[in-house]
């Protein structure tokens, strides 16, 4: 037994030292997917007014949130405060906007509307239930009090975000 031990001790310093780096890879699938369900269109009920309301001849933009993990995300929808593209404007534009739950995939989501928080042009919804929720936004732009908008193409953006809690 002693001999064996001695031999082992003698050999030990001669064992070469190897190093190996083992990678670790992973894939995180999104659990909150935002999809544009309907593109909005401005109506022009008055020369000085552009509106997405259907009563004004517009189309309300709708965005859908698909959440597969309950109570993990907050939806933030911000209505526009400026045109992303438009003819040259020489006066100010007054913006108003609202966002509401338009459709749900679960009865429990009907409470989202009552629990929503609005600050500025942003509306925040707590996505406590897994499933799909549709949010519609209205946006209205009034130009210079009563001035007529110059002829041309106008584009504005609704920003939808999904923020992890």
């Amino acid at each position, binding site marked *: 037994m002693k001999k064996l031990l001695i031999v082992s001790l003698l050999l030990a310093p001669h064992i070469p030292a190897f190093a190996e780096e083992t990678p670790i890879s992973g894939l995180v699938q999104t659990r909150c997917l935002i999809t544009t369900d309907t593109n909005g269109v401005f109506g022009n009920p008055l020369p000085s007014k552009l509106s997405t309301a259907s009563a004004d001849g517009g189309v309300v933009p709708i965005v859908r949130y698909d959440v597969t993990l309950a109570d993990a995300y907050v939806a933030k929808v911000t209505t526009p405060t400026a045109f992303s593209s438009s003819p040259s404007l020489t006066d100010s534009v007054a913006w108003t906007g609202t966002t509401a739950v*338009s*459709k749900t*995939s679960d*009865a429990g*989501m*009907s*409470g989202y509307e009552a629990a929503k928080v609005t600050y500025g042009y942003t509306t925040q919804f707590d996505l406590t239930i897994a499933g*799909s929720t549709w949010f519609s936004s209205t946006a209205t732009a009034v130009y210079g009090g009563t001035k007529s908008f110059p002829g041309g193409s106008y584009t504005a953006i609704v920003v939808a975000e999904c923020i992890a809690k």
Partner: protein
Amino acid sequence: MRLAVIALTTALMASQVHSEYLYGISGNMAGAGHTWGMNNIGPSNQRGMRINGVFYQYTPVKNTEDDMLVHVRNKRVGGGYIFSSTDDWSGLPGGIPITKGFTIDNLPIELWGDGSIDVEGNGLVTDANVVYSYKYNNDCLTPMSDPSCPGYMDAVLSMLGNAEVEAYDPMGDENISDVMDEKVDLEEESEEEEDKEILENILSSVDDSVLSANVLSQNLLMFALTNAVTMNTYYDKKLAGGTYKETVVLDGGNLPDNKKGARAGLAQQLLHTKMVSMQYDPKE
């Protein structure tokens, strides 16, 4: 024979069968009320129709504090429910549409009973929309598409009707026999003429062959004769040296007259003259 014809028809049609699934979506089954039957889903007479999806949407109308359950479901033939989804709106506000979709594991249409939207509690359901997606075989669009389709044999028998089915014998057809007789007569006449032509052709061919053989043999003989004279030996003769040089040398440069030769020449001349003159002598 009738059975044979039917069997042949069956085999031919069966060989053309190919099965393929088609997909479709029903209309709004809840458009006319909150109960509906499943008989009008998709095209009629579809064999093997299977439901693979249910989609519904409605808007609850209620007070928030009220209890309300909404059941969307289909009865199962034989008892129970083959599909059921319940939304509990108790304590929740109404007014916001709800939409849901379900994947169904291709359940045969025969199992699906009547569908309904039932409200339990206080509240109403408006703007209801229930849609089924389905798939089906297209191989029974007509009963004769496939021997396994319902009503296949009836359709085949109906197509054949009550007419007697007789085997067609082409040899008994008068038109065909007439044509065949005419053909035999023509063949006999033409055979005699053909024999004469063949004999003439053979004889003319023999003459031609003999003539050709003679010409050929003459040619070979002439070739053999001319080939015996070899001209090459004449063509190849050459003179040795090629030139003959002068070898006579005169000493002193003086060449004296040959007196003997002169005498002999003169004597010869005299004799020659005498001989010539003798021809003028008168004959004795």
